[in-house]
């Protein structure tokens, strides 16, 4: 990029995510796409995080709320099933945790250094459903 002067880049505030043409990009998984050098897919924002969301698949009901609300497309979902968090692009904003509807939540924020196994073992337990008194 930086070898270009003012006269040699394409006009407008544009970048091309792919070199040349591509067909049906939506059908190719992000990790399999041949992104161009200027695409930000290869750039990690992991060090923006102070806390990270961890995922407890035992509690997840695959409602896809986290996937819809994540502003950085960092919820990895396959066939409408929540699979994992993309920690290269997650900035630790916590919105996924906020919108997670289960009790306890299937996503919780932990300190960046927290071990995943340890976190899962400390996860709040699901309370047994009891008949509601009126």
């Amino acid at each position, binding site marked *: 990029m930086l070898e270009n002067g*003012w*006269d040699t880049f394409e*006009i*407008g*505030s544009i*970048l*091309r*995510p792919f070199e040349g043409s*591509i067909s049906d*990009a939506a059908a190719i998984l992000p990790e399999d796409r041949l992104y161009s050098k200027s695409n930000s897919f290869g750039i990690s924002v992991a060090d923006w995080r102070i806390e990270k969301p961890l995922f407890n698949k035992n509690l997840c009901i695959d409602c896809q709320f986290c996937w819809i609300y994540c502003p950085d497309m960092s919820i990895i979902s396959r066939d409408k099933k929540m699979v994992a968090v993309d920690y290269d692009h997650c900035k630790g904003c916590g919105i996924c945790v906020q919108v997670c509807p289960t009790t306890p939540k299937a996503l919780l924020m932990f300190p960046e250094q927290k071990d995943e196994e340890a976190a899962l073992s400390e996860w709040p337990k699901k309370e047994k459903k009891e008949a509601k008194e009126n």
Partner: protein
Amino acid sequence: MADIFELRDIEVWDGNMAASHALRQAQVDVVAAYPITPSTPIVENYASFMANGYIDGEFVMAESEHGAMSCCIGASAAGGRVATATSSQGFALMLETLYSASGMRLPIVLNVVNRAIGAPLNVNGDHSDMYMGRDSGWIQIDCYNPQDVYDMNLVAFRVSEDHDIRLPAMVHQDGFMTSHTAQRVKTLSDDVAYDFIGEFKPMNDMLDLDHPVTHGVQTEEDWHFEHKARQHHALMSAVLPKIQEAFDGLKALTGREYNIVESYTMEDAEIAIVCMGTSVETAQEVSNELRAQGIKAGVVGIRVFRPFPLEQIADVLKGCKAIATLDRSSPNGTVGALYNELAGALFNTGTHAVLTNNIYGLGGRDLTKSSIHTIYRDLQANAQAGSPTTPLQQFIGLRGPKLSFF
């Protein structure tokens, strides 16, 4: 397919209706708009043409002018022909997005019906909004009457969308004085007008799914300067020749002649008024009266405000002994913007002309012929003295004691 609208060769239109018909003939794909006096009828007429089948496109009612221009930006990046209209406070609220549109090189056409900016609130015409846009990176073309508005809209689409340019364009007209004054307007038939503009040629449109493209990227200190330089280069190098080409084409088609700088009896003029909008025609009338008395008076009308035709204006004025700029916007703590532009154009040229500044017509105050006669009289005195015989900046048509500065 849109229906043909049968026009008479000469219609009686105000400036707003002239703009609406030009937009209709351009067959704009998306108009996103928010109403504001005095530009409202432009988009209102347009919506009515669309409802009646004369346009094949989309009309989006936005929640504000900021939203309207943001919709226009999205639609233009998606690959459509796009236009809208606004005035005054609406223009001010749009301003952030105007810089986005030009930096993204999106060929949007914006009709600006010039109106004062509050406080105090005022719906009448002055040039405060036009001046507010002068750094925004848009092409700015100025109109003096409804015929101009019709013709300049056709020119604006053609120039703006050219792939050597790809810059948005504003077409300016004076609030009420032009926008609401019906006059004879010579028309083109729908197909001739459309052909003059040309088919919209997409470039990097987002809806071209085989060539995905990210619009509106971030560039920090490593790239921003180069983007802005390239944008300025396009404005400076490509726009004026393409406008001239469009003017030539329009003349061949209609016989109507427009110029980058509208000079009137300037060949041998010794004193000249430089102004914009409806005032140009008033000044021309007064200069005719002075010519009849043997006084070598002329008028320079700004037709293209951005890019500023610095060299062409300096050339037109090179023989002048005294020049007055007329600014219809509050200078708020300095000389008028047009005064500065002219000083910038004439500096380093070796001219000995005296240059002075008149502030007039804010918030719709009338500019009378009598005031213009007074300005020409001042110019005669300046020309004779070879230096300003009045303060540099004078307020004209103002109630209360004479106000002047410098």
